[in-house]
């Protein structure tokens, strides 16, 4: 079970209390009526689906109920950092990043296992 740090409850809580809420830091255009269809599609439909470090919104739905932001590694599923909603995208502290990279080297990805099978 993953433990996720809620920045409002100020402690690590079980993933069972949380819900994923999509990519973070997507700014709504100031004048949505003025943008082109392509720009609208980019804003509304298209997401980066990053492999590795990604910024997401999560909601502590069965806890304090708040939305917040999280930096997560989609390869290892490790949460690198969480911070309150409304804050700008936060840099990952260097030591957290180094730790995550070291851990990632030992993580079994599907591709690695597929390689072994062959």
């Amino acid at each position, binding site marked *: 079970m993953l433990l996720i740090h809620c920045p409002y409850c100020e402690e690590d809580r079980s993933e069972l209390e949380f819900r994923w809420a999509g990519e973070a830091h997507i700014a709504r255009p100031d004048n949505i009526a003025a943008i082109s269809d392509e720009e609208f599609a980019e804003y509304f439909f298209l997401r980066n689906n990053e492999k590795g470090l990604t910024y997401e919104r999560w909601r502590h739905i069965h806890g*304090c109920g708040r939305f917040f932001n999280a930096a997560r590694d989609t390869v290892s599923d490790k949460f690198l950092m969480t911070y309150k909603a409304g804050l700008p995208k936060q840099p990952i502290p260097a030591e957290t990043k180094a730790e995550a990279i070291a851990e990632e080297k030992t993580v079994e990805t599907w591709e690695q296992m597929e390689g072994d099978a062959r």
Partner: protein
Amino acid sequence: MVDFGAEIATRTLPLAGAHGGSSVARLELAAPAERISLRVAAADVAALSAALGVDLPTEPKTSASANGRTAMWLGPDEWLVIADGPGEIGSGLMAEAAKASVPHSAADVSHRNTAILVSGPGAAATINTGCPQDLSLAAFPVGACSRTIFGKVEIVLLRTAEDVFRVEVWRSFSTYAFGLLAEGAGDAAL
């Protein structure tokens, strides 16, 4: 206010007649209680505290009790306030909240919730059969409270003594919650 028909209406309480438990955990139904769901901004917390006669706690996972009511922190601007004990229905939490002349939202949820009291040396183990929170006394001391998950239903958990918990649950989920607690109490006794 005319209370038309209140004298003749009979209300069947959720879980009426339910019983369960084991040698280490006792399950009881809490008396009906008046409850409000309260939302108020940080700047106006003091005004609501004064109106309700209990200091709304602002630390996560904490509760406060005074004047026969208990206020539980659910989120940064959200509390569940319960008037304790039998006979408190109609004591006026809604009316008292309305006396605070600051913007807030108070919703009467007295009948939305019911509560199950879990007590005994196996109380924490019983709840932990369906709840992932750390219920050690260090992490969840007496007076601690939290909205959390129990099996597949949401609950608000309050520790009222070292070995006593109050499980607040929506009434339509209460048979599920009671059933799982009864199973948990059995498992805790193994």
